[in-house]
């Protein structure tokens, strides 16, 4: 198993390398002088020249990449000229809100979707099954921001139960922290629930068609045990896969949700950075998110070992 682990981890390195190269090239593809773009519109010619020197823009593309990559490895993601601080520090500041939102969303989505999917598979063809399938397609089709506005209107404004916007750091108290996160998490989790419920239903359905289920039932085991211990457990691998893949979806949704709910996280940072043409920050955020996505998928792959003892590699 350790060889499997080592090999899987090693497999992520070329992917990360490719991401780094792509992100590096993205900036160089722009029409215009990257040094001027990095320096910002109010920079003087001396400042632009200084940046050009530090980036080695007069050297070959390969040499430039080595310099940039070297900085990257030492944790230096550059200087944001719009926010006037280290990009790494900036990302560090914005990490907590996004992490909190994403985690709560995933927990909520899995907690709701998996039972729904199991139920739909158990009562395959029944009204619940059809309702869930219809609902899940709807969940894919409504844009996140429309959903957010509707929820804010009904829950925050009309009913007054929850705040309309904002984020409270965990250090200010668990209750305010949760209160501000409930609505954004629900908004974001709807698409995720639709996705996970579908896949859960499909894999549990397939598992339920297997012989060992008939055996378990014939043995007289209670239905709940059959469903959870036998069917769900065997369906776990595709479900874990989709949770991993769905993280990419989540990141996209986070960008919009943070905009509407005024949460100062990485998603908002991306939008602000794009509007300000703040390339160091754009690069930094994309690298960070890609890295996180690769790590999550690695964890999902590793979780297969836990779910499916046959996977030993």
């Amino acid at each position, binding site marked *: 198993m350790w060889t499997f682990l080592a090999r899987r981890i090693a497999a992520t390195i*070329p*992917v*990360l*390398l*490719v*991401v780094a*190269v*792509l*992100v590096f090239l*993205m*900036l160089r*593809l*722009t*029409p215009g002088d990257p040094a001027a773009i990095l320096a910002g519109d109010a920079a003087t010619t001396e400042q632009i020249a200084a940046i050009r020197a530090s980036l080695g823009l007069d050297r070959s593309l390969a040499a430039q990449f080595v310099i940039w990559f070297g900085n990257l490895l030492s944790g230096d993601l550059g200087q944001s000229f719009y926010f006037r601080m280290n990009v790494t520090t900036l990302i560090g500041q914005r990490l907590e809100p996004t992490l909190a939102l994403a985690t709560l969303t995933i927990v909520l989505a899995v907690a709701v979707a998996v039972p729904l999917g199991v139920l739909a598979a158990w009562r*395959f063809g029944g009204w619940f099954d059809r309702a869930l399938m219809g609902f899940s*397609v*709807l969940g*894919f*089709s*409504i*844009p*996140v*921001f*429309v959903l957010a*506005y509707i929820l804010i*209107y009904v829950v925050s*404004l009309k009913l007054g139960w929850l705040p309309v916007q904002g984020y409270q750091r965990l250090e200010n108290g668990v209750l305010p922290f949760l209160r501000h996160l409930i609505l954004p998490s629900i908004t974001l989790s709807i*698409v995720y629930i639709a*996705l996970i419920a*579908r*896949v859960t239903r*499909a*894999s549990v*359905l*397939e598992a339920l068609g297997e012989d060992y289920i008939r055996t378990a039932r014939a043995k007289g085991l209670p239905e709940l045990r059959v469903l959870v211990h036998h069917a769900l457990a065997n369906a776990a691998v*595709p479900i874990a896969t*989709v949770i991993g*893949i769905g993280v*990419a*979806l989540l*990141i*996209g949704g986070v*960008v*919009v949700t943070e*905009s509407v709910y005024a949460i100062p996280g990485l998603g908002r940072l*991306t*939008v602000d950075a*794009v*509007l300000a*043409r703040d390339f160091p920050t*754009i690069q930094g*955020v*994309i690298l960070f*998110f*890609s890295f996180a*996505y*690769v790590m999550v998928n690695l964890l999902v792959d590793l979780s297969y070992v836990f779910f499916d003892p046959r996977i030993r590699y």
Partner: protein
Amino acid sequence: MNATDIDALSVEHAAVRRQAGAWERVRKNWSVRIGGVAMAFLLLVALAAPWLGTVDPTLFDAASRDLRPGETGEITTLDGETLEHRFVMGSDSFGRDIFSRVVYGTRISLLVGFSSAVVALVFGILLGLSAGYLRRLDGPLMRVMDGVMAIPAILLAIALVALWKASLLTVIVAIAIPEIPRVTRLVRSLVLTIREEPYVEAAVALGTPTPKIMFGHILPNTIAPLLVQGTYICAAAILVEAILSFLGVGLPPDIPTWGNIMAEGRVQFIAYPHNVFFPGIFLAVTVLAVNILGDGLRDTLDPRMARRL
């Protein structure tokens, strides 16, 4: 972007089915019918836009701003003529007719959806065929595809639009690029499977040139799954365009797209919900229709998978 991955997993199996009777099954399937009719209707609306009681969607008159759906007001044309006009879906904060903007917006949304799907499919097919057929390209190509897939699609699209100027072409390409890896993967695995089929091996033994094998034997078997994948890409593209416009990094605001109309209307969503409501409904219905169509196609082209997803 939404279900594309999951369904990509399943459609791989669809290819190796017989095509016999497939068209019959497709036509009879209810999802295909509903989705197809809805799409045809929207296409009609898009094409017939100038004749549906619309005015130039960029015309505005400050005297007619923020009218509720159904109210009448004035519109001044560029020649200086003032017409009386019934604002069926109300007017926005400029005084522009929302109905006209939504109808013309159908054109853009369908165009973006369709074009992004085509671009993604074309490049995906070329790359997938190359990867599946040319051993030496396979490794590096798939690494690059993995890398592109590691970058979340929205971020990639936003960054690409920020780098070039915001135009229709930029947006289409920016939305298509994140979808290409999945199509490549799909085509590549299809190629690898079909290559092993006896009739392909026979063709190779007979000395058939590679392009003929690629386009004559392999490609036809990929049409069904690619069609299904294409519909999902189309649905995702329409949604992504709306999100880009909402964030302010999409098409320029004077081009009426549903996303742009909602982006401008978000300022007064509570007071004048019609700005967001009407384009939102059109958007949801369109994406729903495309998704349903895709579901139906997948169900009919591979009944084994129908019960799965």
